[in-house]
């Protein structure tokens, strides 16, 4: 039964953040390690996680800083990479239906990462919890805290922290794909197979021909466009 009391909403959000936390801690740890390898101090690594809070962009930022790219070039590249996030808020509020609230969206939207978006969508789609801003604060806080904490642990552990554990290092590297696959399975419905196939195919093709960043954005738009032009009944059954 979906619970709807205010405090239950925040607690449910924290509970729902558990899989994200498990995924974020090792990845953020890896980021902290990579940041110190790239010559950043622990404070700089934690600062990037605190204010940027966008995993892939942060790893790319390390590469750009390492190559000595000008600030403007780095900023534009990273901003373009995060453009995909414009789709998340409206898609979530649409899924929330009559429960949609956005009075404090200026605050909870800060934590609307890929994983928070995907997990929240799955929770709403399965009817485990109704949308509430407290739920969004709960899931956002759990994910954010684990990201910042993981970064700090990795940064203070230093650049050679995982060198003696290659198997663990490899397993941590598969954490993010595993999380996305699990999220995909949790929202999967038969009617969505065509749009998912198009999203996957477009991402692979454009990543190969142009760039991974272009691949991500075009894959999302192409998949959503297929869902848009298909018969309404076919797409309506997708996440309800």
């Amino acid at each position, binding site marked *: 039964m979906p619970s709807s009391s205010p405090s239950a909403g925040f607690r449910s959000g924290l509970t729902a953040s558990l899989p994200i936390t498990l995924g974020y801690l090792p990845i953020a740890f890896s980021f902290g390690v990579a940041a110190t390898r790239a010559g950043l101090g622990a404070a700089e690594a934690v600062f990037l996680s605190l204010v940027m809070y966008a995993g892939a962009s942060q790893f790319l930022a390390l590469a750009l*800083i390492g190559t000595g790219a000008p600030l403007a070039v780095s900023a534009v590249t990273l901003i373009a990479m995060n453009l995909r996030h414009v789709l998340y808020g409206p898609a979530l509020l649409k899924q929330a239906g009559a429960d949609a609230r956005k009075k404090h969206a200026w605050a909870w939207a800060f934590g609307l990462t890929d994983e928070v978006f995907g997990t929240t969508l799955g929770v709403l789609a399965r009817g485990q919890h109704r949308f509430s801003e407290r739920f969004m604060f709960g899931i956002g806080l759990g994910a954010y805290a684990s990201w910042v904490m993981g970064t700090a642990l990795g940064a203070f552990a230093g650049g050679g922290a995982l060198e003696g554990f290659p198997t663990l290092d490899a397993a941590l590297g*598969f954490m993010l794909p*595993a999380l996305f696959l699990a999220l995909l399975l949790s929202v999967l419905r038969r009617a969505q197979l065509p749009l998912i196939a198009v999203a996957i195919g477009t991402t692979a093709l454009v990543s190969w021909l142009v760039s991974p960043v272009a691949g991500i954005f075009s*894959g999302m738009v*192409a998949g959503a466009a297929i869902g848009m032009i*298909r018969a309404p009944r076919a797409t309506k059954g997708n996440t309800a």
Partner: protein
Amino acid sequence: MSVDVIQLGLIVGAFTWAFRFAPTRLDLANDRPEGLFDRFLSATGPAAIATLFTASVLPMLKPGLGDQAPLAMGMLAVIGAHFWFRSTAIATLSGAAAYGMTIFVLG
């Protein structure tokens, strides 16, 4: 702390926040339930997750068929654990464990 790192973090952080927050101000109340924009938004979630999964897996693909064993085992473990436990957390951990163990076994 380097001034460049601070500037980069603040600029990118501000834009990322704006990308996440500003679209929530759109008024969706008057959008027809079966309208094109409604269907676009409904399809965005699954499309986004499929896209992010693909983008995260692509760099892991290796040229030889035998080199795909860790990836295949990891994905099978995620799928199996998902249908067995119906838990995203357990499925994620199972996949990472299977991936790491396969690499360990294959040396």
